[in-house]
């Protein structure tokens, strides 16, 4: 099962304001009643995109200018709260392929990497500059360069970003989903199961 390396992702971007955007905000618990992740995209950020009568709010994802965004830009502690993988899955199914934020919650980060969705950390000042640029011109193409650890825009912005070595390595080498490597060690797994008396 060879996986595609992810040296970079690019697309137009949308800025979602607020700190501590938790997984409940990203995908409300009631939409976790599902047996596959396939339909989750349309419910991403549902409770902030629609009011209690189902009418659209002025959330950025409802703004036609950002309808085709595939890069999400956010503030601090993005993805905090529960461990539900439904959150990054819903963003992925919605059409996002990368996230730039000031910081991320740990479990959300790991889940996103496993879905080949690079998450990179930028300074508050750089996130603000990026936000201003994409709001001034929603067609700005934003590139997350995982290889060089830079974010560049078609408007000429070029900022440094960070990500843990293990995540970067996993994306660059096409090992973002560890399943094949885990499967490859089958003989050692069998030996361990016997050694510890589990089987």
């Amino acid at each position, binding site marked *: *099962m060879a996986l595609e390396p992810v040296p970079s992702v690019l697309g137009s971007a949308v800025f979602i304001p607020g700190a501590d955007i*938790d997984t*409940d905000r990203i995908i*409300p*618990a*009631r939409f*976790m*009643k*599902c*047996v*596959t*992740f396939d339909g989750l995209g349309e419910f991403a950020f549902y*409770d902030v995109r629609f009011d*209690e009568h189902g009418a659209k709010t002025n959330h950025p994802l409802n703004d036609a200018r950002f309808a085709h965004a595939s890069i999400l830009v956010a503030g601090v502690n993005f993805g905090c*709260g*529960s*461990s*539900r*993988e*439904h959150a990054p*899955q819903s963003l992925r199914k919605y059409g996002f392929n990368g996230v730039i934020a000031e910081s991320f919650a*740990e*479990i959300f980060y*790991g*889940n996103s990497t*496993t*879905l080949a969705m690079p998450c990179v950390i930028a300074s508050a000042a750089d996130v603000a500059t990026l936000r201003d640029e994409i709001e001034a011109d929603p067609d700005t193409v934003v590139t997350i360069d995982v290889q060089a650890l830079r974010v560049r825009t078609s408007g000429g912005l070029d900022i440094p970003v960070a990500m843990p*070595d*293990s*995540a970067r*390595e*996993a994306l660059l*080498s096409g*090992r973002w*989903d*560890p*399943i094949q*490597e*885990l*499967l490859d*060690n*089958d003989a*050692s*797994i069998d030996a*361990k*199961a016997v050694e*510890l008396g*589990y*089987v």
Partner: protein
Amino acid sequence: MGKSLFQKVWDAHTVGTISDGRKQLFIGTHLIHEVTSPQAFGMLRDLGLKVKFPQRTFATVDHIVPTINQDAPQDPLAAEMMQALRANADDFGVTYFDLSSGKQGIVHVVGPEQGITQPGTTIACGDSHTATHGAFGAIAFGIGTTQVRDVLATQTLALEELKVRRIEVNGDLRPGVYAKDVILHIIRLLGAKGGIGYAYEYAGEVFDRMSMEERMTVCNMSIEGGARCGYVNPDAKTVAYLHGRPYVDMTDFSATAARWLSFASDSDAHYDDVISLNAADIEPTVTWGISPDHGIFISESIPDPATASTPLEKASIEEALAYMKLDAGAPIKGVKIDVAFIGSCTNGRISDFREVAKFIQGHHVAPGVQALVVPGSQIVAIQCEQEGLPEIFRAAGFEWRGAGCSMCLAMNPDKLVGDQLCASSSNRNFKGRQGSSTGRTILMSPVMVAAAAIKGSITDARELFDLTPSASIA
């Protein structure tokens, strides 16, 4: 230098190192439920993989089951999820404690009750409260759905090693102070993010004296302090609890028990951090905000943003108070409640119901308050019935329900409505957690929930129930 339990279990279960530097860790026991497993089985089918060791995975249904007419959910999606779990368990040969088994319940209640949870093992479950099983000296992780797939297919996980923080609590707890107060206090002191990157080892006289069920209450909330796992070293109580349980091999029990105990941390173990607290300083604790570290003693006042030390703290207090509709600086005692909930994987075990039942006789739930009592498993429910507890609760005006997660989260019919305020024995007070986007949650011990239900407002159970030293438990 010796090793901590975490290091011993981690080292014993390490299969190898994968190319990104993470360890491949053997997972002894895998627990699954209806919410985070169907997608994982779907991925397995897509990849044409089998379950590697079906006998090491155990399933139950808890999050979406109604607590009235349990096997007939009105919600077609809930019915579909229950169906999917049944089909997956059958197709892949996994043991399923379904509603007709008499053993169904919240996954973190069922594992210990069946003796599936054992010391010195690794446990994983697609649920963030898996640390509960650490009460037995197991290393237990909450995992994402893709990782559920990994465990199904390989019985291993790719993980980064954690640091270990030892949290010692010594001295005597005062009457009316429970395991729940101890963990709420620890989270208040260390913060909701304080444990990121750590496993928590709970040690000292207070945890030594606790029953297994109280230890589970503490370990359960490790994730609320940011720690992926938390544990208590196994001892004679651990061994006694497990003796004779269905999944404990009794053929050479003394050898098994000796092996379990050998995993306990060495006296000269290395810790990355050590914190020491005095039990006598802890009072009954309740939350006032929207994060589990927003805790105060029942005698304290609601925080005032004006006294915050940083702008960030000020903004966070303001946000929490606006959501909770509480007044800065006012006493928390006396805040009116609408709903009371006793249950969940934190406090839905037999000792929780026995303890509350000791105090509520002769009292009645206040007019206008809905009070729900939800056993954590069918076995707990039967034990309660045998001891006559449902009658005691009903006589005091509480509703007695069937086993499940119930009002801990919004995936079954038990939900708050509008901005109702709930005194809850569960573990999360996030915005909207109990099913209404404006619903409010105040976390506390089950005895404090009962006191609030009876008074109709947040109250000090020690005053209402006249808690004298002889009435206290460890």
